[in-house]
């Protein structure tokens, strides 16, 4: 009986693969590139074991553990180093890839009425869902294999075949688990935005849960799928258990998604649609009110997420303090900056990562304009007495406010959690000021989104590449001593690292100028071009 629901799955898989061949290839190439370039660079950076051990010393603190997970610091070979510093972050990106690819071909295609067409053909009821899952499974396997064999092919002594394959399997396994998460949420949520939002929510929560439990109680990290990644201990203990867990979890999620799909109607979720207002509220009066109405739910969840992110990092501060107190050798090794505790020296690193995370919601808010254009909904507004400047200006205003609120919430989260767990606490104005210093850099990203939406609408997704680039240079730049200019290409590389460095206002001012110029160009371009999907 079940088989008839799967008729033509093979053909549909080939069809989806054809549609996504460029996208899938780009993801695979991008992830593999980062996987391979890092150990190669480590080989150049650290000439011998002493240098690597010195690096291990600086990594041995709760803040780093929160960020990248635990690692084998006693025997810090190039292989162990790569697993410690890179595996978790890369797995996070692989999870993101799965979520985006899967939600597009499940709820995304359903929402746009394409699945309805496919269902009318002699294809089984569950065929399209499973075709999407077949494609993502294939993608995950390829990801695992090319990363595994690629790492081995680097020919680094401490990176043997078994460890390399395990490393690759960690990435592929994570991709598989989050494909399952997205497939399940595609059944529960009624929109592709909802599917993506909820799945990314689970991804970030898994990361944060692992961050907190890795420090407080490592065995609890087993509850987070991202905890499994670091528990493979590739290149040291080569644990295949977690990979097995990933495959089982993914299989369960795939089956659950199939079950949920089989018991629901097409184009509906599980919550029945409640009747709403029969008239518009006094809020929904114009383009700005509409834009806010469309974003408020998402913004609300992002706001909570940002606060939790800040608080999670903040909660690490207490552990850091006691860690430093018990370790006199380390206190001597890390030259304290005058007037700052050792703990405070880690603040810039936390802030820069958090500020890039806080850039995501305002950029989403800005890109929503192009999304509305693609769905041909802007015609309703522009066909009425709404000017283009007013329309784009509304979205821009919301994005700027969004940026301000998100970075503020991260800072408040960080400070309040740190204040609760530390003996002396931190100065709120120092933390908040240092966080706000990143606002101009975020505005440059928003400005780029405005510019692309106004002048090069087909290239709007490019802004994400720039955000991702910034994340990687900031994240890796510190670890790998990238040349200065790589960081300077990103706006985040121009912000002084308060409190370790002196606050500098000129770069911030210049970033604001760049942001304003991009926004102005975008607004002008938007007035001059065709509105079309």
């Amino acid at each position, binding site marked *: 009986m079940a088989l008839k629901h799967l008729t033509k799955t093979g053909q549909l898989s080939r069809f989806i693969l054809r549609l996504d061949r460029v996208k899938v290839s780009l993801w695979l190439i991008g992830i593999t590139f980062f996987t391979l370039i890092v150990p190669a660079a480590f080989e150049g950076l650290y000439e011998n074991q002493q240098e690597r051990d010195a690096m291990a010393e600086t990594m041995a603190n709760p803040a780093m553990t929160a960020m990248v997970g635990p690692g084998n610091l006693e025997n810090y070979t190039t292989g162990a180093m790569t697993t410690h510093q890179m595996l978790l972050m890369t797995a996070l990106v692989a999870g993101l890839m799965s979520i985006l690819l899967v939600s597009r071909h499940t709820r995304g295609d359903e929402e746009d009425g394409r699945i309805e067409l496919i269902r009318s053909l002699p294809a089984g009821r569950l065929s399209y869902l499973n075709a999407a899952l077949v494609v993502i499974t294939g993608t995950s396997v390829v990801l695992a294999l090319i990363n595994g064999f690629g790492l081995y092919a680097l020919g680094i002594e401490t990176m043997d075949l078994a460890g390399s394959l395990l490393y690759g399997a960690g990435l592929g396994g994570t991709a598989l688990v989050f494909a399952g998460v997205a497939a399940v949420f595609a059944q529960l949520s009624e929109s592709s935005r909802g599917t993506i939002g909820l799945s990314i929510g689970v991804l970030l929560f898994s990361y944060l849960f692992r961050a907190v439990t890795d420090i407080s109680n490592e065995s609890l990290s087993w509850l987070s799928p991202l905890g499994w990644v670091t528990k493979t201990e590739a290149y040291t203990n080569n644990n295949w258990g977690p990979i097995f867990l990933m495959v089982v979890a993914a299989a369960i999620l795939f089956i659950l998604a199939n079950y949920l799909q089989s018991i629901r109607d097409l184009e509906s979720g599980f919550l029945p649609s409640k009747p*709403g207002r029969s008239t*518009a509220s006094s809020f929904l009066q114009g383009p700005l009110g509409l834009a806010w109405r469309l974003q408020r739910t998402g913004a609300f969840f992002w706001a909570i997420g940002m606060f939790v992110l800040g608080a999670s990092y903040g909660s690490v501060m207490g552990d850091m303090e006691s860690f430093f107190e018990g370790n006199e050798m380390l206190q001597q090794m890390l030259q304290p900056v005058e007037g700052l505790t050792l703990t405070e020296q880690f603040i810039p690193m936390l802030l820069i990562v958090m500020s890039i995370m806080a850039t995501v919601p305002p950029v989403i808010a800005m890109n929503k304009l192009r999304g509305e254009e693609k769905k041909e*909904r802007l015609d309703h507004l522009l*066909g009425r007495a709404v000017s283009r400047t007013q329309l784009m200006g509304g979205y821009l205003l919301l994005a700027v406010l969004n940026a301000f609120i998100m970075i503020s919430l991260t800072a408040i989260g960080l400070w309040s959690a740190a204040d609760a767990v530390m003996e002396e606490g931190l100065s709120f104005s120092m933390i908040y000021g240092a966080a706000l210093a990143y606002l101009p850099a975020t505005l440059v990203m928003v400005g780029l989104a405005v510019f692309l939406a106004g002048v090069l609408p087909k290239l709007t997704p490019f802004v994400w590449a720039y955000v991702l680039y910034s994340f990687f240079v900031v994240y890796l730049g510190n670890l790998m001593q990238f040349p200065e200019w790589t960081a300077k290409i990103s706006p985040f590389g121009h912000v002084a690292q308060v409190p370790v460095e002196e606050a500098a206002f000129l770069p911030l001012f210049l970033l604001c100028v760049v942001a304003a110029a991009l926004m102005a160009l975008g607004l002008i371009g938007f007035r001059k*071009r065709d509105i079309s999907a």
Partner: protein
Amino acid sequence: MSMLKVTNLTKKFGDFKALDGVNLEVNEGEIMGFIGPNGAGKSTTIKVLLGILKATDGEVQIFGKDAWDDAVEIHKRVAYVPGDVNLWPNLTGGEVIDLFVKLRGTNHKSRRDELIEKFSLDPKKKCRTYSKGNRQKVALIAAFSSDADLYILDEPTSGLDPLMENIFQECVKDLKKQGKSVLLSSHILSEVEKLCDKVAIIRKGTIIETGTLAELRHLTRTQLLIETKKPVKNLAELKGVHDVEVKEQGLSFQVDTEELDNVLRHVSQFGVLKLESAPPTLEDLFMRHYESGDNEATPGAGGGN
């Protein structure tokens, strides 16, 4: 007074010329039908009129103002209904109608409620749950409850049931009584015939015919069915006679309107027992334009709206 005047409008998408020298005029109080095959350029013309697409060349004026530069000013007096109504899934129909009406500035609460009643729409439902026809009703109610001078309707009834189609026609007739102007693009030719004073036919981005229905009919053929005492001779050889067919009830053929007189003189010699004539429908006219000439496909992939 001219409400809408398009002169030599050209619109290119890359290298592809979607509109090639379109000329169109709608005067005050006039209802203009705008017809043409799929992909001919109707929606493209309308989007240029609304300042959503930018003209590559030519002049587009509404109320004597430039459709691109003065879009906002113009839109305060224009109501638009798109053919494919995409709405926000999380908003209710009532909210969308209110928003649309407010975006123009005028507010006719009583008219809105009356129209919701008339079109029997449930305004409390989320747009995601609306059928195609119901989404179209939302756009129609918003358009008809705003006090505009020019109504631009792009296939506004493609999803309506016959009952709603009637109500739509009543609403347009009301507009006509109030002296409003309407540009109505449609594939439902009977609707265009019933409502419009004038018709413009577009094909491959060029207007190939404009005029009142009477003027256009003049260019077309009348369908005749006759029964005579004696068999009719030499009918097919006469100028302006087409498609002669012998049927059970008699002889069926088409006559060019300008040759009608000659042909009737000729057949009357044979003793006419019965004569039925059908006026040329817009459909005949339309078909003639598209069957005659080349049979090649319309430009592009015949894309949507």
